[in-house]
C-alpha cells in the first residue's frame, strides 16, 4: 500500500516517491504510524466520552436514589430506567462497562496506543514502526473490540454486570444476573480481540525500540517517554496473554460445560454438577494481568510527563538514570504483587504476607520518581503551558493516590477497607486521574506534532482547572465514605439507614458532593472536546518546534510525510535533556547538535 515499511529498514537517503493516496489508504487502512496513533486517539476519546457518560448516569442514582430523572430516561429509556429510576441490574452494568472502557479502551488503548505509535518512531529517528501492517492490524483489532463492547450495551439482557473484573461464578452463570448472558459473552469476545490487538501492538513497539534507533541513539540517550513505552510494551506482552487464558477458560466454563472456576453451585434453583474448579484460580489469572495493567496505564503517563516537565521547566529531568531504574523496578515488581488484590479471598494468609512485602517495595521507586519530578521543578524556569499544568497535576494525583496505596497494600489494614469506597478513591486518583492527566498533557504537548496546528491555550487552562478541581472534588470525599466501611458497587446506601442513621446521613451528603463535582468535571471536558476538534480543523498553524524541545520529533517537518524525515535520518549526539546547559547560548540543545569542543555529555 505505502512505501513505508520497506523504507523503514534501509537507512537510504533517496527521496520518497510520493504516490497519490486514496482516502481509504490514507485515513482508514493506513500503515503510517502517525495516522494510526491518531486513529487510536480519536477512538479512545470517543470511548472515553461514553464511559464518562455512563459514570454520570450511575452517579445520579447514587446521589439521589430512587428519584426520577429525565436524564436517565433520555439515555436509558423505559427498559433500563422505568419512570426515570435506574434499574438495579443496569446500575451494575453501567459500573462494569464504565470500568472496562476506562481501564482498557481509554487508558490502555488510548494512552499507550496513541503515544507509543506517534512518539516511538519520531523520538527514535525511525521512518516508521518495524511493521506497518501489524501496526494497522493492532488498531483494527482495537476498533473491532471497541465496537463489540459498545454493542453489548444494547443487548436485551443487558451488558456484563459482574464488575470490570468479571469474577466467576457471577460472570459464568446467566441465572445469577441477567448481564451474564449474551452481554458477558460479548464482553469476553471483545476483550479477547482487544488483547490480540494489544499484543501485536506491543510486540511491534518492542521490536522498533530495539532495532530501529537512529545512529547515536543509544538506550541511555532515549527520552524517558520511550523507556516508559518500552517497559509498558514488555509488561503487556508478558501479562495480557494470561488474561486471555483467563478469559478463554471462562468462555469454556460458559459455553463448553467445563469446571475451571465452578464447584458445588446451586443457582436459580438448579443444582449444577460442576465440581473441583476454583473461582480463586480466575482471580489469580486475572490479577496477574490486572496488576501490571495498572502500570501499563501509568508508566506511559509518567513517561510523557517526564518529557513535558523537563521541557517546560527548561531543566534536565533530575536523575535520568534513576528514572530509568525506577521504571524498570516498577515494571519488575508489578509482576509479583498481584496477590494484594486477594488478601481476603481465602488465599493462604502466608502468601498474603509475601505480597504485602513486594507491594510495599513498589513505594520506593515511586517515591524516587516523585522526588525527582519535584527536584526538576526546583530552580527551574517554568513555562506553565496547559500540558505542563496537567503534568504537574499528574504528579500531585500520583502522590495523593499513591500514599493511600500504602494502607491498602498492608493486608492487616486492607481487611478494614477492602472493597470499600476507599479503594475506589485510591485507584481512581492514582491510576485513573494520573493516567488521564498524563494523556491530556500528552495531547496538549504533541498536538502540534499530530495535527500541525495549535490548540487554544486559554481553553486549555480552563479545561485544566475544571478537571483538577473536579477530580479532587469527586475522589477526595470518597475516602471518607470508604473509611465508614461503605462497600463499593452498592446501588443504594439506604440500607445504612436501618442500622446507623448518622453514617447514612454522611454517606448521602458526600454522595451528593461527589456527584455534583462529577457533573462539573464532565461538563468541563466539553471545553476540551471543543478545543480538540475545533483546533484539528481551524487551529493556527504550528511552528516546527513550538516548545523549544530537544527531542527528535521536533526536527521533522510540520507537514506529515511518509518516512518522517525528508532526506537522511537525523544523527543523535547527546541525551535529550540538555536544557539551560551552562555555556550554551540557547536554553535548549537538540539531540542532533554535536557536542561542542570540550563539552561533556551530562
Amino acid at each position, binding site marked *: 500500500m505505502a512505501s513505508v515499511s520497506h523504507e523503514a529498514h534501509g537507512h537510504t537517503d533517496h527521496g520518497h516517491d510520493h504516490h497519490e493516496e486514496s482516502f481509504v489508504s490514507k485515513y482508514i487502512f493506513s500503515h503510517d504510524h502517525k495516522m494510526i496513533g491518531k486513529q487510536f486517539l480519536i477512538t479512545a476519546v470517543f470511548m472515553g466520552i461514553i464511559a464518562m457518560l455512563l459514570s454520570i448516569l450511575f452517579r445520579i442514582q447514587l446521589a439521589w436514589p430512587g428519584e426520577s430523572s429525565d436524564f436517565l430516561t433520555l439515555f436509558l429509556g423505559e427498559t433500563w430506567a422505568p419512570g426515570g429510576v435506574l434499574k438495579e441490574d443496569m446500575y451494575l452494568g453501567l459500573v462494569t462497562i464504565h470500568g472496562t472502557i476506562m481501564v482498557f479502551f481509554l487508558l490502555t488503548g488510548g494512552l499507550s496506543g496513541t503515544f507509543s505509535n506517534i512518539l516511538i518512531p519520531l523520538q527514535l529517528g525511525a521512518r516508521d514502526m518495524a511493521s506497518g501492517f501489524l501496526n494497522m492490524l493492532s488498531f483494527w483489532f482495537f476498533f473491532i473490540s471497541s465496537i463489540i463492547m459498545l454493542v453489548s450495551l444494547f443487548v436485551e439482557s443487558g451488558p456484563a454486570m459482574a464488575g470490570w473484573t468479571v469474577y466467576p461464578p457471577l460472570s459464568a452463570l446467566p441465572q445469577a444476573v441477567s448481564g451474564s448472558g449474551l452481554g458477558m459473552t460479548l464482553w469476553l469476545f471483545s476483550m479477547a480481540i482487544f488483547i490480540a490487538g494489544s499484543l501485536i501492538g506491543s510486540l511491534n513497539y518492542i521490536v522498533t525500540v530495539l532495532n530501529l534507533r537512529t545512529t547515536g541513539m543509544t538506550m541511555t540517550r532515549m527520552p524517558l517517554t520511550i523507556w516508559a513505552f518500552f517497559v509498558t510494551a514488555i509488561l503487556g506482552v508478558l501479562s495480557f496473554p494470561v488474561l486471555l487464558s483467563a478469559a478463554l477458560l471462562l468462555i469454556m466454563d460458559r459455553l463448553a460445560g467445563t469446571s475451571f472456576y465452578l464447584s458445588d453451585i446451586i443457582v436459580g434453583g438448579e443444582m449444577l454438577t460442576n465440581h473441583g474448579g476454583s473461582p480463586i484460580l480466575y482471580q489469580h489469572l486475572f490479577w496477574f494481568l490486572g496488576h501490571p495493567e495498572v502500570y501499563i496505564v501509568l508508566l506511559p503517563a509518567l513517561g510523557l510527563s517526564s518529557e513535558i516537565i523537563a521541557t517546560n521547566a527548561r531543566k534536565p529531568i533530575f536523575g535520568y538514570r534513576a528514572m530509568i531504574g525506577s521504571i524498570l523496578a516498577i515494571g519488575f515488581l508489578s509482576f509479583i504483587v498481584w496477590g494484594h488484590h486477594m488478601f481476603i479471598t*481465602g488465599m493462604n494468609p502466608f502468601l498474603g504476607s509475601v505480597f504485602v512485602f513486594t507491594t510495599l517495595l513498589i513505594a520506593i521507586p515511586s517515591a524516587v520518581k516523585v522526588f525527582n519530578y519535584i527536584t526538576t521543578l526546583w530552580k527551574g524556569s517554568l513555562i506553565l503551558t496547559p500540558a505542563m499544568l496537567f503534568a504537574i497535576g499528574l504528579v500531585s494525583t500520583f502522590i*495523593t493516590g499513591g500514599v493511600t496505596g500504602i494502607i491498602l497494600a498492608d493486608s492487616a489494614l486492607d481487611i478494614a477497607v477492602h472493597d470499600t469506597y476507599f479503594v475506589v478513591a485510591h485507584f481512581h486518583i492514582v491510576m485513573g486521574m494520573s493516567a488521564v492527566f498524563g494523556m491530556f498533557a500528552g495531547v496538549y504537548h504533541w498536538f502540534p506534532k499530530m495535527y500541525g496546528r495549535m490548540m487554544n491555550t486559554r481553553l486549555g487552562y480552563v479545561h485544566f482547572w475544571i478537571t483538577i478541581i473536579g477530580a479532587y472534588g469527586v475522589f477526595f470525599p470518597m475516602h*471518607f465514605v470508604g473509611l465508614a466501611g461503605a462497600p463499593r458497587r452498592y446501588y443504594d446506601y439506604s440500607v445504612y439507614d436501618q442500622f446507623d442513621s448518622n453514617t447514612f446521613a454522611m454517606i448521602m451528603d458526600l454522595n451528593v458532593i461527589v456527584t455534583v463535582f462529577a457533573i462539573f468535571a464532565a461538563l468541563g471536558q466539553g471545553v476540551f472536546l471543543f478545543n480538540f476538534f475545533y483546533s484539528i480543523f481551524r487551529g*493556527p498553524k504550528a511552528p516546527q518546534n513550538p516548545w523549544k524541545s530537544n527531542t527528535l520529533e521536533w526536527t521533522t517537518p510540520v507537514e506529515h510525510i511518509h518516512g518522517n524525515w525528508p532526506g537522511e535520518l537525523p544523527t543523535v549526539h547527546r541525551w535529550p535533556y540538555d536544557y539551560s546547559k551552562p555555556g550554551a547560548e540557547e536554553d535548549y540543545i537538540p539531540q542532533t547538535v554535536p557536542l561542542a569542543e570540550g563539552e561533556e555529555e551530562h
Partner: protein
Amino acid sequence: MESKLIILIVIVLGAIAVAQLVRIYELSSKLRKRGEHEISTRDNNLNGKMMYAFMVLLYAFFIWLMVEYGWTGRGDAASTIGKETDWLLNLNFVIIIAVFFLTNTLLFYFSYKYVRKEGVKAFYFPHNNKLEMIWTVVPACVLAVIIILGLKKWNDATGASGEDAIRIELFSKQFDWTARYAGDNNLLGRFDYKLTTDLNELALLTSETIDSAIVNMQTGPTGIDALVKKLNDRTIMLIPEDREKMEEDLSRKTRLIRLLHQMKKHHTKKYDAYAWDDIIQKDTLYLCLNKEYEFNFRAKDVIHSAHFPHFRAQMNTVPGMTTRLKFTPDITTKEMRKRKNDEKFNYVLLCNKICGGAHYKMKMMIVVLEEGEYKSWMKSKEKATFRDTYFAAAAAAPADTTAVPADTTMMVAN
C-alpha cells in the same frame, strides 16, 4: 419530555457559548500577534498563583472533610483485633498524611515560585547521588517499619483461633445470610451441596438427609421419575427447547443421584451427631461479649463477602470452598448505642462482593450481648436445633413427596 428538551437545549447552548468564547480568543490572539505556544508572562504568573491557591483550597477541603466526617462512619472498633487495626491504621495515616502534605506542598509551591522570570535561567542540575540516596533510603526505612508492624498484626489476625472459640458458620446466597451455631458439642455438622432440599437448606450431612435427598431427587415433583415420565408421555407436545432443557436436567440429576448413592455408601454415622445439635439462625446474629468466635464461611451460588465494618473484619465466601475468620467482640450493642448516641444503632454484616442485582440489600443484623443475656438467648434456642426443626418440618410435609427442589423462591429481586 419537556425536561429532555431542556437538557438538549442546554447542551446546544453550551456548545454555542464555547464557540463564541473561542472566536473571541481567536480574534484577540490575532490582535496580539502571539502564537498559542508563546505563553505570556501574565498567563504564566496567573497560573503559578492559581497553583498556589489551589493547594491552599485542597488542604482546606481536606481538613474540612477530616473534621466533619473523619470519624463519623468508623466509630470505635468493636473487637479486640479491630482495636489493633485502628491503632495501626491511625499510625499509617499519620505517616501518609505527612507525606501528602510535604510532597504536595513542595510540588505546588515550586510550581508557583519558579515560574519563568525575565533574565533568570534555570539551574542545570541533572543529578545528585547524595539526594537520590536519601529519598531511596528514607522511604525504605519507613516502609520497613510499616511492613514489620503490618505483618505482625496480619499473623495475629489470621492465626488459628483458640481451642474454646465458639464456632459459627455463615452461609451466603443471593441475597441473604444464614448463621449456624455449632451447638452443644461446638462442632459444626458436615455438609455437601448435593444434599440441599427445602427441609435442609444448608445441606447438612446426616444419614436421614442423605436418604431424603435421594428420595427427593428420584421421586420429587421435578425428580428423575417425573422427568422420565414427562419426556416419554406422548400425549404432551413439548417445544424442542423445553425438551432439550429437560433432557439436560435429567442427565444432570442422574449423575447427581449416582454421587448421592456413593455418599450414602461411604457415610459414617458418627458425623450425624455433629449436625443434629447445630442451631440455624436467620436475620440476626447474636454474639457474646468477650468470647472468641471462629467463623466459617460458605457460598451457595456466587462469591459473596462477609464484611463486618464495626469489627474491622472481612472475608470472602467462595462456592466450593470454606473460608474462615476470627474475632472477639468487646463492646456490647447497648454500650455502642450509648457511645454513638443513637438508640437505633446496630452492628451489621454486609455483603461486600458484587453478587447480583440486590447485592446492596444483602445484610444481617448483629447483636452483641453480655454473657448472661447471651446464655438466656441460647437457652431459648435449646428446642430449635437442626434435629428439632428438621423432623418437625418433615412431619408437617406430606410423606411421599418430601419437598420441592430448593430455592423456588429465589431471585425475588429480579
